């Protein structure tokens, strides 16, 4: 009898391997292997558990770290270093909940603390083939490991705590195929921004996106995480990249990764985590990486992106009334004019950090650009916020912090920081930043602040000139 050929996508495979059953409503019940928690979206979930007299289903699947609301200065003071009493209460509440329920936490004093999406992979808590959830939309980051990783709301955080399951409907399959080779000074960040420009912020709605093609295969794990991180900005709850040698080499010997015989067993399973040749996708998009120049966002939606050499578009350049209105709103909010060259635009602050771009590779690239140079006098503040205590430690071991400090950057402690400005790191009204984060929404980095999303290299180059600058001149 001939073997039936499987024609499943990677998403289909992970979905099928975690399907527990169905509710009468028709929703599927999916088993969750890893649940990451932070201080902002978990307190109401723990409160719900307590009120219902429930306990976590499987403690060891959960791991917590505070990130959104922690200060990035004076870390040695621990909790006492949090000046805002409301922020402090939230971080203390996470401490208390983790203690009460027995959930492992990398707390504010732990060298392993950091942005939850940097910490999970770094510790080997994220493994190929897993289902991963967190009450944060950028959980899509972990899809870089061939894991089905999704952001969830607080009710779902409570549901996962109580049942180890998530109730949902299966998404459609979308494939983004990227051929070619990134040029010098063009990075994963530029690639994903160009993708979102093409798909729009709703292009991936209802889909799980698998990124593939030679340009994706050539990326490091850090860079793949940057790509999957912003799948949500294309509207997709999850982004995925198939497992290969790059994945395995990254995961091997991480503290929570399997060891010895279990490692071999895991690897032989993980190697099956690719879409079958005959798999079909509901939607496909192709892109050529070779054609890309460094990208920068100019509006208040991550789809409003341009190449560094292009002129700022006018609303009439867009086809639908919705997009024309978005462009018009964006120009007004951002204080820009159509037809302007983006490199004329003057900056106030520079932010290098976030779950998109705060890993060691990102810091290395930024350091390469600024080494031996000075930030522009016009720049009021240039922040480097490492993604975790261990990234910070590694950067210091390589001497990167000295390069940054000598160039006029502030070398900070790990956290989400100015990506969403919940702590004191923020833009003042009408201040303009280049930022290596993921969202340029109105007010995202501070009330009436203006954000341009860029790669770490472009952020670093722009810090030197005080204007949005093509990093290729500095590499």
């Amino acid at each position: 009898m001939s073997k039936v050929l499987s024609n499943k996508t990677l998403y289909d495979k992970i979905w099928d391997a975690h399907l527990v059953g169905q509710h009468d409503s028709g929703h599927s019940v999916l088993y969750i292997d890893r649940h990451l928690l932070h201080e902002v979206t978990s307190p109401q979930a723990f409160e719900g558990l307590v009120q219902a007299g429930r306990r976590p289903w499987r403690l060891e699947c959960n791991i917590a770290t505070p990130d959104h609301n922690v200060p990035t200065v004076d870390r040695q003071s621990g909790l006492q270093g949090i000046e805002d009493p409301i922020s402090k209460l939230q971080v203390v509440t996470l401490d208390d909940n983790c203690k009460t329920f027995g959930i492992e936490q990398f707390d504010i004093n732990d060298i392993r603390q950091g942005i939850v999406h940097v910490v999970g992979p770094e510790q080997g808590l994220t493994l190929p083939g897993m289902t991963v959830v967190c009450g944060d939309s950028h959980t899509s980051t972990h899809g870089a490991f061939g894991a089905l990783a999704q952001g969830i709301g607080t009710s779902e955080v409570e549901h996962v705590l109580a049942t180890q399951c998530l109730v949902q409907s299966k998404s459609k399959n979308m494939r983004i195929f990227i051929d070619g080779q990134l040029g010098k000074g063009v990075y994963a960040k530029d690639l994903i921004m160009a993708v979102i420009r093409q798909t729009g912020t709703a292009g991936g709605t209802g889909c799980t996106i698998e990124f593939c093609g030679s340009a994706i295969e050539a990326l490091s794990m850090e860079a793949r995480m940057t790509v999957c991180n912003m799948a949500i900005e294309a509207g997709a709850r999850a982004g995925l990249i198939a497992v290969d040698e790059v994945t395995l080499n990254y995961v091997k010997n991480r503290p929570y990764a399997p060891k010895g015989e279990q490692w071999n067993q895991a690897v032989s399973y993980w190697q099956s985590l690719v879409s079958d040749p005959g798999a079909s996708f509901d939607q496909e998009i192709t892109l050529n990486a070779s054609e890309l120049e460094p990208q920068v966002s100019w509006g208040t939606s991550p789809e409003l992106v341009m190449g560094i050499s292009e002129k700022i578009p006018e609303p009439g350049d867009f086809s639908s009334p919705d997009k024309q209105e978005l462009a018009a709103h964006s120009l007004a909010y951002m204080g820009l004019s159509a037809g302007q060259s983006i490199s004329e635009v003057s900056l106030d602050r520079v932010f290098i950090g976030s779950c998109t771009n705060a890993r060691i590779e990102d810091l290395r690239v930024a350091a390469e650009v600024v080494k031996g140079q000075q930030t522009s006098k016009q720049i009021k503040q240039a922040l480097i916020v490492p993604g975790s205590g261990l990234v910070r430690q590694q950067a210091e071991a390589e001497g990167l912090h000295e390069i940054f400090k000598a160039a006029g950057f502030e070398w900070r402690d790990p956290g989400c920081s100015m990506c969403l400005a919940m702590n004191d790191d923020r833009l003042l009204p009408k201040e303009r930043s280049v930022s290596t984060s993921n969202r340029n929404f109105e007010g995202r980095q501070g009330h009436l602040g203006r954000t341009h999303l860029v790669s770490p290299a472009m952020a670093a180059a722009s810090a030197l000139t005080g204007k949005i600058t093509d990093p290729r001149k500095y590499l």
Partner: protein
Amino acid sequence: MKAFSKMTGRVAPLDRANVDTDQIIPKQFLKSIKRTGFGDNLFDAWRFLDEGSMEKSPNERQINFNFVLNQERYQGTSILLTRSNFGCGSSREHAVWALLEYGFECVIAPSFADIFYNNCFKNGLLPIVLEEKYIEEMFTEMKRIESLGDGQVYSLMVDLPGQCVTKPDGSPISFEIKPDNKTTMLEGLDEIGTTLRMQPAIKAFEKRHKAAQPWLFS
């Protein structure tokens, strides 16, 4: 969760696409550890001219009278009519809590972002997807009624069991909703309770899963 079946309510028009959850409830209000208290800060940066914070009470704020929800005729509205990709961005469920607490029971748009859409069903806020042409019609009809200046209001009747929205002139528009989401809303299901009743299936799954991927259990 509160069940949703039928309602009739006045409509507020938010004529903007891609309204993200950072706009629905800005980050500074996410510092709360409670599920309540977000209604006063719904669309904070649009409703008020000054920067909001958790310490400021609504009485001390500078109101932006140009913003649609601050207009007299839209006080007490319970249906929000808006444009495509509503609720994109952050997964913060606080966005849904803020809309509900402000008084909205239903949001009508051509499309919603996934996580927001999903969060709605966990809280009894009904998101209705209607074709662009119907949304356009409603915006136009609202403008016309308002321009008469005779105090007429634009109300809709929403019937979830019948999957129908009835306009003021009595014309019905049917809408699609997945049966699973519909059931969840109609019954106001306690999803955790429902899943916990599957305890034997979850335990059996864990046994199989452990055999297949033992490294996840060591």
